[in-house]
């Protein structure tokens, strides 16, 4: 067993994420996989706006900050210009499923050969906990004080389900980071997505269910339980599309 150590793609510093936030774990998983694939000098992290933007400061490899929602467009420009690099976006749910809906769907539909890491914590963390497109029905936020009401705000956006109906994407999967098994599966999924990209197979999409202790107003431990009883039943983990699967 290799010793448990800091991945080389992360700066030797603490991240800006709140204590107990699974963003930090999600970032670490990506960095671990990049180390395992020996891609540290080849990877380009296209960071978006929201808490995910904190990656700008903790990422040790090449990194580009992009406008809110536009990371898939930026990644398109990067990857088309440098097809040999490992390019991925790291986006939150407000960024990807609201303001950036056109960019994510279009990049997926074009089959751009990069990977999207989508951290879904059902809230706008950085701006203070407003309703996100993924906020659950009944879940409270600063703009849905009595809980999200489907009558006026519709239903939480299920991105894996939406993207998997497109023809071009080759691998679409969702993992929940609130259990050791979920974390191990997520790491395998990220690795598979990156390997598919390096083999030139096309668009890969990894959704990671995360938490937000600060804006959900819960202890980190309670967020994990909340995910079990509320998040996971609606955002079901699993592989939604796998064009390269054997058989």
């Amino acid at each position, binding site marked *: 067993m290799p010793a448990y150590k800091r991945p080389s793609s992360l700066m030797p510093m603490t991240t800006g994420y709140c204590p107990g936030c699974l963003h930090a774990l999600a970032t670490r998983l990506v960095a671990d996989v990049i180390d395992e694939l020996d891609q540290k*000098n080849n990877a*380009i992290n*296209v960071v978006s706006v929201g808490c995910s*933007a904190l990656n*700008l400061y903790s*990422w*040790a*490899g*090449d*990194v*580009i*900050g*992009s*406008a809110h929602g*536009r990371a898939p*467009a*930026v*990644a*398109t*420009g*990067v*990857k*088309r*210009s*440098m097809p040999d*690099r490992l390019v991925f976006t790291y986006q939150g749910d407000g960024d990807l499923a609201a303001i950036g809906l*056109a*960019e994510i*769907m*279009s990049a997926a539909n*074009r089959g751009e050969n990069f990977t999207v890491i989508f951290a879904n914590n059902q809230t706008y963390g950085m701006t203070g906990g407003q309703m996100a497109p993924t906020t659950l029905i009944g879940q409270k936020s600063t703009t849905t004080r009595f809980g999200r009401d489907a009558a006026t705000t519709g239903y939480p956006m299920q991105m894996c389900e939406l993207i998997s109906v497109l023809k071009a994407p080759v691998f679409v999967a969702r993992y929940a980071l609130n259990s050791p098994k979920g974390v191990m599966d997520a790491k395998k999924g990220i690795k598979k997505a990156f390997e598919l990209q390096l083999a030139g197979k096309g668009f890969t999409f990894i959704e990671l269910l995360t938490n937000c202790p600060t804006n959900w107003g819960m202890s980190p431990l309670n967020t994990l339980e909340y995910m079990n009883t509320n998040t996971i039943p609606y955002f079901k983990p699993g592989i939604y599309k796998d064009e390269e699967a054997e058989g």
Partner: protein
Amino acid sequence: MEKRFMKGCEAIAEAAVRGGCRFFAGYPITPQNEIPEYLSWRLPEVGGSFVQGESEVASINMVYGAAATGTRSMTSSSGPGISLKAEGISYLASAQLPAVIVNISRGGPGLGSIQPAQSDYLQATKALGHGGFRTMVFAPATLQEAVDLTYNAWDYAERDRNPVLILMDGCLGAIMEEVELPPMKELDYTVTEDWDLSKRNGREDSHMITPILPEMALEMLNKFKGMTYNMWGMMDVKVEEYLLEDAEYVVVAYGIAARVAKEAINTLREEGYKVGMIRPITLYPFPKASLDNLDYGKVKGIIDIEMTIPAQMRDDIELQVKGRCPVHEYGRSGGMLLDDEGVYNAISEIVKGGE
């Protein structure tokens, strides 16, 4: 030099390729569609990439991504689409990325009209996006000038690590004229490889391209940009001064308006009237000295002619005239074109009325 009879949009597109452009992303909007249409087949021929974006917003951000790799990148649009690109252009300026943006302008405001107009001067020169940055703004009057300015635009963009805007109205985009095409440029990647993400020089260290900065660093960047803008004013002003020596009336006009005005000035000269013209080729940096240094003992009036109403360049003109003579304006707008007769009559009324 290779001579061709070309349409404005296609001439710009070919000049871009020869100037080293290897990435284009854009979204259809009249009257600039011939630029993406041309580049959609031309860029792959030279190993470049063309992407038809899902929107103007996506397209400018694709350009942002490509520019970060040190690839010479371009997008084009018309007024309404440039408004949508505004955010992305500001990000390019902030992240210090070179790129070329072309505006083939049409009647405004709003969806306006698809017919040609010069209604985007203020947007181009004052606020091409939020946050108070500037870009160089090239305003060609002939297709040859458009070709030459486009061909060299990346040299400025990369020198300054800042986007460059080419502003041309729909007439020049649609018109066909003879142009001499310059040869393919040899690309010099050493200009960008110390900051771009290409790792062309074999380096192992990593880079951050960022449109967000800690406060002190952002202030430093803004001070540096301020110095850059001042340098443009000293080094990069391009202007045509036409028959100014003895001029009693000076027309100020750019792009297509300047061509129509020149024809009228030629006629008035034949009639014995002393009319000259200042034609800004760079709208920013604005040719301040040309206006400031006029002999106001002799000059009786300035006439600002633009294909927009009200005139938008007038404030920049008046800042240099400083009340030393009256400033008049004449224009058409909304997609109604200037023509020789209208411009001649407008100038002539002022000139002959002053006798």
